[in-house]
């Protein structure tokens, strides 16, 4: 077992122990915090598929996060107000069922990533960073000024959506749902990184001209990576909206995209569990520092700066040492 696997196992154990401990000591808010960390981790794992393996520095991932959020918001809004979502030759009703909402969020995220990727992948480097930022901003301004679903006020959903057989209003049950999804996506991510696609994508990041010389299209590889990434981040968006029972344009803001990247860097780039460690640390800091000072964001900034400048491997790197060649 490598040191990284030990760190991963420790993080995994924390994700199980903390909420169970909180349940035992009757601290439901800790469970809520843990749920928040798990969902943000899920979003960052999504980004990490594009960024970690494919090297796609997308500063517009809030777009997919927000789309997932609004998929939940719009479907649940129509369900709670008993108005059809679409009337025409056929009628589409809203829903409060999580699995359907997730499916819509995943498809929405994937579709948006496909269109944005098709256009953005013509560019590289800084231009790619900036064009993805531009697409994120388009969604942000659109949702603010479009009145149908609350504009800047957003949409409030009064009761959390349901999952067959569970009472999602009980914090630990909703946590379990999110945790299982995170595990599934992490498993998928681990498999993906070793699969032919992951190998090719990884090479497309390092030496695109080589990939082309063996008959593969690096842009198509990256596009598929972006679609998978958008789908996962979209799913996380739907869960995040369900956690807050609320969705608003802030999910589309560029700071959100920045935060997702912060998770990856804090945790350690190119690590499977990097985004998980990063999101956990971020939520913890937000919780601890927020109580200490009005100016806590400055401390967060300083810490982040230190990690970028000196702690290159991030949190996982500190404990697990240098990144190992996978396989």
């Amino acid at each position, binding site marked *: 077992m490598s040191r990284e696997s030990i760190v991963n196992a420790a993080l995994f154990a924390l994700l199980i122990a903390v909420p169970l401990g909180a349940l035992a000591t009757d601290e439901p808010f800790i469970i809520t915090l843990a749920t928040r960390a798990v969902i943000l981790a899920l979003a960052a794992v999504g980004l990490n598929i594009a960024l970690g393996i494919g090297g796609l520095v997308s500063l517009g991932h809030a777009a997919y996060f927000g789309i997932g959020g609004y998929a939940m918001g719009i479907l649940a809004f129509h369900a709670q107000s008993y108005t059809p979502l679409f009337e025409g030759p056929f009628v589409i009703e809203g829903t409060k069922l999580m699995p359907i909402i997730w499916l819509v969020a995943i498809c929405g995220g994937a579709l948006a990533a496909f269109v944005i990727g098709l256009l953005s992948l013509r560019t590289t480097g800084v231009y790619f960073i900036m064009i993805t930022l531009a697409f994120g901003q388009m969604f942000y301004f659109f949702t603010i000024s479009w009145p149908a679903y609350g504009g800047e006020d957003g949409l409030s959903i009064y009761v959390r959506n349901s999952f067959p057989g569970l009472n999602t209003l009980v914090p630990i049950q909703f946590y379990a749902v999110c945790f299982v999804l995170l595990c599934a996506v992490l498993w998928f991510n681990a498999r993906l990184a070793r699969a032919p696609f992951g190998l090719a994508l990884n*090479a497309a990041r390092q030496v695109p001209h*080589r990939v082309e010389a063996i008959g593969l299209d690096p842009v198509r590889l990256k596009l598929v990576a972006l679609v998978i990434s958008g789908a996962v981040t979209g799913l996380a968006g739907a869960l995040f909206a369900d956690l807050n029972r609320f969705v608003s344009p802030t999910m589309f803001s560029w700071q959100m995209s920045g935060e997702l990247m912060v998770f990856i860097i804090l945790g350690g780039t190119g690590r499977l569990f990097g985004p998980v460690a990063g999101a956990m640390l971020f939520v913890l800091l937000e919780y601890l520092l927020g109580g200490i000072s009005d100016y806590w964001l400055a401390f967060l900034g300083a810490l982040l700066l230190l990690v970028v400048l000196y702690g290159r491997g991030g949190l996982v790197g500190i404990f697990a040492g240098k990144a190992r*060649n996978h*396989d």
Partner: protein
Amino acid sequence: MTEPVLSTHALTKRFGALVANEAVSLDLRPGEVHALIGPNGAGKSTLVGQICGAIKPDEGRVQFLGRDVTEQSTRTRARSGLGRTFQISALAMEDSVLQNVVLGAMGAAGTVWHFLRPAMKDLTIRQKAEQALERVGLSDLASLRTGEISHGQRRRLEVAVALTLSPKAFVMDEPMAGLGAEGTRELTALLDELRQEAPILLVEHDMDVVFSLADRITVLNYGRVIATGSTAEIRSDPEVRRAYLGEES
């Protein structure tokens, strides 16, 4: 005369006012090593770029296996069997040596769109990759990280990756660049064997290598072909001696 495997017909490429290639025609016949030489800036890399599809010619055509491939992408040419090596090693340095050849074999087999099955467990692919490593004598290093092996070993790995494509022709851009005497000797021997498999268009600076391997030589200067012929013809060509060999050696 046998049909050439690969040929260019009056390829011309300009970058602004600079004419990088002017009406370059050459061909590569089965079983031969055809060396392309010329001083720095003669337009060799531009020509390789056009043959492999990275650079679009302004005028002229490229033919490969009897088909006009001028409009085809690098990928299509690669898939039909044009195996190239790069002047500066283009390898995934973070990956293992074996992974680099597996990648090549996957590209050739078109099995890249699998998302869950581990790449290294596809036995057909792996076998092919290991054979390629065997050919270039890198089997022992298969599990090392590419960033950790020596420069000479990487040059051979480049060749191994090209081999996984089962190419119908090789285009090698300065495979000996940066190699010591020992490395050069080994790689020369390898290329000598490989010509049986597929002909090699060899861009090379090392004249000893060129004259020991090449069946024919084309000399490029200021973007134009100034001579083509057997090694003996080139050695005695007055224009080549004046424009090129005289300065170099």
